[in-house]
């Protein structure tokens, strides 16, 4: 029971389902398939940057520049499309931008030794500034509207974009599960010294985490532009904190070493669903952030209490074990003494 409760992904998933059914008692419209599909659809952007963020948090880092990276990648994507590049090539440009921006963070953190929060705060400003310089501060419109076909085309009533992200997430999950090097993210976050002593390349692992974070922000940019068909200057604004909240909610410890892709997926779904539920309950949108924050705090505190209970039980068991061993020893030695005295 304890172990099941300790699976945070499951806990949040149950809460998500529970929340939807609870709201359904007030408003049946929530349970319409279209509503649920829309929630998933609008969570895609957050989901992708959260998956990237997961790698960084897992290795005990933090990346607050992902929103800016998504914005910058969206601008490059828009430019590429407007320049008449074919869609696959334009997508590649967006992904390359994201990966390169992530790699810059990685160089600062891994090789220069700047704390992740400082480095990525710096690049958050730099990338946003760069985005403004490139566009002169104006939105990129007039993007060929064929880009929206991904978002509009539906297969089994579900937008093609959702299918694409679902496939991507499953591929990442399988890779993380099957590829040995993927386990290095956990090892480095859990105990970096131990990982080094076992011959794991700690620097390469952390470098990969930041680069992947950028890469997924680039992918998120493609989804974003595909869904709305233009690039506003606010693209990705504030999403970095939401992404961190999503992965923490889903069970990636800020101390590193825990969490899965599903943490990011379920965390992003949950935060997006909270926003939608507010609408169905006719709560003004201004409440969204406050409610999402309260839910996040509640779950994290609950989780901490469970972990602390388990930990204290282990310590108590160890102390009892030591005491028992010592008592046995004393009994044995006093028995020998009695025997010696008798003989």
């Amino acid at each position: 029971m304890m172990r099941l409760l300790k699976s945070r992904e499951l806990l949040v998933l149950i809460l998500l389902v529970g929340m939807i059914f609870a709201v359904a008692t007030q408003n049946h419209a929530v349970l319409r398939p279209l509503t649920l599909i829309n929630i998933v659809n609008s969570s895609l952007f957050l989901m992708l940057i959260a998956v990237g963020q997961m790698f960084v948090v897992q290795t005990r880092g933090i990346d607050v520049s992902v929103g800016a990276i998504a914005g910058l990648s969206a601008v490059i994507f828009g430019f590429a499309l407007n320049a008449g590049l074919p869609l696959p090539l334009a997508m590649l440009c967006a992904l390359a931008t994201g990966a390169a921006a992530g790699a810059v963070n990685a160089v600062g953190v891994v090789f220069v030794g700047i704390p992740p929060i400082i480095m990525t705060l710096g690049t958050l400003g730099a990338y946003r500034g760069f985005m403004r310089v490139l566009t002169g501060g104006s939105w990129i419109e007039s993007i060929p509207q064929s880009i929206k076909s991904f978002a509009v085309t539906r297969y089994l009533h579900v937008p093609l974009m959702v299918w694409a992200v679902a496939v991507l997430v499953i591929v990442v999950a399988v890779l993380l599960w099957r590829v040995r090097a993927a386990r290095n993210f956990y090892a480095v976050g859990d105990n970096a010294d131990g990982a080094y002593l076992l011959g794991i390349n700690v620097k390469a692992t952390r470098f990969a985490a930041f680069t992947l974070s950028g890469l997924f922000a680039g992918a998120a940019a493609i989804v974003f532009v595909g869904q709305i068909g233009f690039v506003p200057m606010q693209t990705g604004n504030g999403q970095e904190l939401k992404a961190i909240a999503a992965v923490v909610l889903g069970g990636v410890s800020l101390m590193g070493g825990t969490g899965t892709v599903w943490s990011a997926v379920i965390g992003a779904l949950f935060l997006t669903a909270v926003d939608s539920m507010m609408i169905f309950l006719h709560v003004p949108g201004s409440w969204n952030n406050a409610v999402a924050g309260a839910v996040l705090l509640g779950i994290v505190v609950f989780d901490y209490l469970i972990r602390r209970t388990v930990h204290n039980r282990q310590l108590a068991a160890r102390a009892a074990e030591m005491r028992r061993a010592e008592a046995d020893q004393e009994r044995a030695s006093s028995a020998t003494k009695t025997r010696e005295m008798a003989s």
Partner: protein
Amino acid sequence: MQSESKTPLVALRGIWKVFESVTVLRGIDFEIYPGQVHALLGGNGSGKSTIVKIISGAYKPTAGAVEVGGVPVALGKPSEAHAKGIYMVPQEPHIFPNLTVLENLTMGLAGERAENARRAEKLAAEIGLEVDFSAPGGELSIANQQLVEIVRGLLRNAHVLILDEPTSSLTRREVASLAAEVKHLTAQGIGILFISHRLNEVLEMSDRVSVLRDGHFVLSRPASELTADQLVEAMLPEDFTPPAADAKTSCKVAGAAPVLEVKGLSGRAFRDVNFEVYPGEVVGISGVVGSGRTEFAEAIFGIDTEATGEVIIAGKTAPERSPQICQQMGLSYVPEDRHAHGIFLALPSAQTISSGLMSLPGARFMSEAEEHKLANGFIDRLRIKLSSPMQSAKTLSGGNQQKIVLAKTLAPAPRVVILDEPTRGIDARARQDVYRIIRELTADGVGVVVISSEVGEIAEVSDRVLIMKRGRLGALPEGITAVEQISAATFDAKGGAGA
């Protein structure tokens, strides 16, 4: 079990190691043969850990050669030592608490995953690691964590295992089963470098014992020819001359009530600790790493709040323990690790010193002039070398940093002071200054508790000696402060004064 005619698995040939003009190792020759357990002994600063780090690839020697199987090698990092069949089991096992036991075992291994898992299960069964392989590593007991480290080494086909203080946090039964594992390993031709403070275990488990002092070996003989007393004698500092009985005058105030009484204090790493400290007296507490000495000091000072028992400071029972309450009642504590807990490296030294007053009730404001007056008083009294009171501690030597920590501790004019490893990492001159400061404190009627793993230090400063061993505190007979007896009791030697 051993045959010295074979080629050693690992050999050090004429190893020297110099750190920034401090020579730590002076021409070390050392071998580990197949099937041999070679114990390495030595006090703090003898160079023991440097030897281990050179063999395990963490340090490169300044001069001399490391040979593996008779061939000179250069070991740049731990993974290169692993590739040569050398694996170090650290005192604190490196466990990934969130990964499964199986992943803990196989992390970083090359080769087929299923094959690694199969080998890990086979080796774990052989070595007696009987746990749920899918449970998280954080749930393993210390003994099993050590077995995980040993299996990691065996999975890397290690021929040489370095066991660094493997028994320090184990129960007696766990030690016995570890000894059985070691026999099992040596029977397969694996060589073991064994490091321990517990002399009886060293004599029981090893084939050969080498004692290190000041960077060279002073003794290296088969264990069967040695007694614990011989080992204690070999470990003592060469220049150590026991202070003449009359030279050491105790300032203990006759008939006064104790300034510190500890009654039935029990915590995680120690239990039922009882002792008292009288004004003007230096009580030395001798204990090896892992004996519970730091844990119990932290419990007295209220850092560990889960301990149970009574602490009476200057005749008053502490209502509840916290560092703030202890300081207000007249108890100060100098922690073992000054960088982590004792000093504010970036602040001006004057502010670090005056920070000692912050927990006192009353005065909440202090003018800069007052602060400097306070700081200058201590700078003169403790002979701290500073260009100005505004100089930050970061730029100071270890000895001067420690004096600033002492000044901070003494600023609230405590009735009793606990000093944990007060001279760790400072030079001989500063060490003498610290001893002088301790003497001056007792002359003022302050009670002093010195906790140390260096028996020479305990012998030098103490009026009365207590021994901390496996979480229990025992006293040496009144008036005994000779270094031989303290060593024998601390290191668990047979025939020594019992604790």
